[in-house]
């Protein structure tokens, strides 16, 4: 499973702290899938809600954006990071 964690506005819109996605089951037997493909899939689960508006993402503790050329596999962790406001 890939765990996709939601924070701030994304958590409010999904009404969840996270979703678990089985890559092989969801993406026709592939072991890995591009981040952007995973994000497209998640967005379709929440049609009409702009859950990724202006968001960055972290894949295994590295910041990525929607267009980053990175693959995710089961056991990875993806964090949805809406615009931050610490301090």
């Amino acid at each position, binding site marked *: 499973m890939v765990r996709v*964690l939601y*924070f*701030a*506005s994304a958590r*409010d819109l999904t009404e969840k702290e996270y979703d678990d996605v089985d890559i092989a089951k969801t993406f026709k037997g592939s072991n890995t899938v591009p981040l952007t493909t995973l994000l497209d899939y998640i967005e379709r689960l929440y049609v009409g809600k702009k859950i990724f508006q*202006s968001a960055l993402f*972290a894949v295994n*503790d590295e*910041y990525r954006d929607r267009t980053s050329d990175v693959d995710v596999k089961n056991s990875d962790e993806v*964090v949805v*990071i*809406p*615009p*931050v*406001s*610490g*301090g």
Partner: protein
Amino acid sequence: MEKRTCCNHQLPEGYVPEHHKDANAAYDHFLITSDTLSLDKACNLVRSDSAGAISTFEGTTRNTFNGQRVIRLEYDAYQPLAKTEWYKIVQEARAKYHILGTSMHHRIGKVDVGQTSVIIAVSSAHRADAISAVHFLIDSLKVRLPIWKKELLDDGTNSWKQNESIDLDAHQPISH
């Protein structure tokens, strides 16, 4: 043995200043907590006989925003990434400035008006490094750490905030 100098200040024989170039939990302290923060605690973590200065920043909840009255802020954080990203920021600070110790304490949960949400403390042999490092660290925190605040207004509405953009390139290193 030749007497060493640091920043044009002569040092005792055999004395080596501990301006570590690598961030390390041994002298760079990181805490995210729902407890009340303490400036004393943050300062004592960086206090050093080698320091001529401890510079600090405290972020507090202000009672206004954009013409409206604020009741309180509520913070959330993704702690594992906040920690790894913070140590990257401290590493960058150590490349720009001569720093002895740092501490960063950030509160999560409810922070009422007037209360403290974040404390940063930095010690250094000379004050210019500590003052500049604190400024660099709080600006970097606001841009880079996965921490969010929700603002509760007196009309009952609340919204997740977004920090204004900050020019981190304006923080130039200090040459020694």
